[in-house]
């Protein structure tokens, strides 16, 4: 049980970070956010919808994103999310934490993993 939880927590953390990162380029609704993450990861990461919407909800709850209702590209009523100032700060700190982490992991795993860090 606990192990699975830990796993979840980490995934949640990364998902939150990626969602915030996505919103830096502009406000977006859930579908766009998922699309952008998938496309920029060259379809390696497939966003599980089951966690995207709870994640958005959580981010909004913590004040990192705000939301408003608008029209989507296809003119449908959609809930758009916008990065708040607090969200931007969070993104910065999360990014640097992430960099440290990946660097550390790369060191442990040896040079083989190569291009792990984004220096």
């Amino acid at each position, binding site marked *: 049980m606990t192990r699975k939880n830990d796993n979840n927590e980490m995934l949640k953390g990364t998902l939150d970070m990626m969602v915030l990162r996505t919103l830096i380029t502009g406000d977006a609704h*859930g579908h766009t956010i998922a699309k952008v993450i998938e496309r920029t990861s060259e379809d390696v990461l497939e966003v599980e*919808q089951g966690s995207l919407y709870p994640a958005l*909800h959580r981010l909004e*709850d913590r004040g990192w994103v705000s939301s408003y209702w608008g029209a*989507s590209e296809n003119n449908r009523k959609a809930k758009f999310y916008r990065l708040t100032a607090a969200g931007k700060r969070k993104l910065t700190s999360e990014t640097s934490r992430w960099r440290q982490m990946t660097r550390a992991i790369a060191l442990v795993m040896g040079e083989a993993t190569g291009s792990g860090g984004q220096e």
Partner: protein
Amino acid sequence: MSWRRFFRRSSSDGELVQEIDLYLAEETDDNVAQGMGAEEARRRAYLKFGNPARVREETWKMNSVAPFEGLLRNVRYAWRVLRRNPGYALLAIVTLGLGIGGNTAIFTVINGVLLRPLPYAHAGRIVHLDQIAAKLGPDPMGLSVQEVRDFREQNHVFSEVAEYHSMTFTLLGSKDPERVVTGVVSGNYFDVLGVKPLLGRLLIPADDSLTAPPVLVLSYAYWMKEFGGDQHILGRTFEMNDRVHTVVGVLPPLPEYPDANDVYMPTTSCPFRSAPTMIANREGRMLTGYARLKPGVTLAQANVDLAAVSQRLAVEYPKSYPASAGFAPQTAAVEQELTHAARPTFLILLGASGLVLLLACANLTNIALSRQFQRSREMAIRMATGASRGSLFCQLLTESMMIALAGGIVGMGIAAIGSKLLTDYVAHMTTLATGIRLDGSVLLFGLGVSLLAGLLFGVLPGYVASRVHLTSLGDGERTAGSAGGTRIRSLLVTAQVTISFVLLICAGLMVRSLYNLLSVDPGFKSANVLSMQISLNWTKYQKSEASRSFFRQTLDRVQTIPGVQSAALSMAVPLNSDMGPMTAGVVMEGQPLHPNEPAPQINFELASPDYFRVLGIPLLAGRSFLSSDEVQAPMVVIVNDRMARHYWPNDNPLRHRVAVGGGDKKTWATVVGVVSDVHQYGLDKEPADTMYFPVDQAGLTSGHLLLRTRGNPMQMAAQAAAIIHQIDPQQPVTEVRTLDQIRSAQLGTPRVTSMLLTAFALVALFITLVGVSGTLALSVARRSKEIGIRMALGATKQNILKDVLTRGMTPVLMGLGLGSLVAAFATRALVKLLFEIKPDDPVTFIAIAIVFLVVALVGCVIPARRAARVDPMIALRTE
């Protein structure tokens, strides 16, 4: 997870649904754009999204406060269950309401009387100081002016010692001439008590000087009653004892302690206390003392110090402290004095009401348990669908808590009414009764008791329910209940019988004690006698001739009222608990005094010629007083039977002489009559040796007029008072009561105590009976199949009847055995309240055990007969 989110969960769920719809629509569009068919595009979109319900659930949970959510659900569920069983809910709420109400009402009294801090600063350090002469009698002797001074100057333990006595004076200047109860106190008295004035100032040491102008301080109650709380009362003047007194202050509301004083004056204003002869007389013991312990000094240390002072005085003034009298200082904490009469009674009543509540809880547990066994299938289903044991337990506990809280609300209503009724009763025992009211701590107590009750009867069924096995989903449920359940219930019944038996024994003892009191022959006939107090204004009747003539006129004229058979005067009225006995050392002529023993102390009373006739006290020998027994005539005395047997056991007491007073000032009186004994100072007190002197020869200034009437005595009261006012318009008439009223007032406290205990005990018996009978009926219902089989196999109705009765009566017998043991110890708490009956009185124990057995047997016979009527065919077929 904020509360805001919690309350708008539904609307945010609605938004989420819209978001999901949008996602599906966009994804479908994308898929179509990639060239899929509409149907396939939608299918893929759904596939990719996964389960929308799960997303919604997860978000919903994120918005919930889990424990609160669970509680709300449990409350809603419990509400539904109770709504479906209104009978059970009502029974449980009323039972608990009665139990909680009884407890809270008693607690209200305890809170008001025993727990509320006294309105004195550092009340725990205030001590009542007096002295006793152990060999002369148990009552305190009082202190003289010199003794108060000596104790004040020579002790090392008190920061201050104040003197106090109370007298009744006539106060002129109000609407009518009035008799006011006056506390006569030294200037530091209110400092000792630690009381601050409500208006103006209180008495100060400067008021104690002989040159100070006379001042008065009013009690709060008197100020409200007589002057309607007039703010401008300060400076108003009243005439008392021929001097003009100025009101300088008003006291805050205080307990009527030491007496119900209307006004307070300094010692120098009291004509008796300030008389030079009184001040000079070391044996003029008319005062008592109040003192404040220095910080850190205990009462025990104070007693040691005071004993040393007392010994020093005895050495210095041997004549005033004869060794034969056994003089010693006596102290008591004021807190203790104020509450000692009520404390044992109310702790016992709280215990009794607590036990009744416990019984009620036991019964409800029993009912809830059997409901639980019926619901075991429901519980098993809920468990099978994923409820945890903990959540089942919580849910059942919520059910019992809701019942308990509802019961608590009913109980508070009962307590509000009950404590009002109790206030009068408590007023007989302590002057603190005015402090009885519902307040925060009472509400808290009620809530606490309710929650405790809910826990008590919720935990066991909850536990049983959470132990349910999934197997009870099968057939098992229809056969007889588990042996474990039956055993728990039998134990509960045993406990109930034990508790209620103990309560019944206590109530039985109290009732028998009351009966003993009621059947005491007081020695006089109280029917149709009116009593009214007439205390003369001493400044007006300073000459004894004046008072004699007043009383003679009064007696002559009230006898002319139609309906009055006879009239008499006396110093005291029998059974009037306001006053203790007056005693005097007496010398019997011809009987040698033992040099090292004090003269025998004998109660004395003053009576007019018709006194014994009015009260119906039989004259055993000699004659009653005559109008010829006047001042100039030879002194005569009438003794009671007890005294006659005591001092002249083999002789006719008539014509013997007795002398009152010491040394050369003896006055001899001849015994002219013997009357039978009277319970003068309490039905529970043995009559003492008593001498009666004629009022004319002894001189009476304050006494009672007694009228024996035809018909209702109260109807004569107005005419008698009118006659007295014709003789002296300024003469107040007080305490107009019939002797029957005085007598029943004496019985008031024991009567109410035993009534309350009996009520609690009967409720307990009833609850227990329901428990015994209900448990047995349930077990019969469960075993009907078994009984059917046994009958089919040849068991007779008698066999079945006997078997069921044995099962029913076994816990009762066990409970009775256990109860007798417990009662043998528990009843010792009652010792102080019992009159002429021992707490382990075997007759009471046996009688109540028999009553209990009979009642329990009746309770068992009903289900037993039902068992015997079981039709084997039907019982077997229902299976």
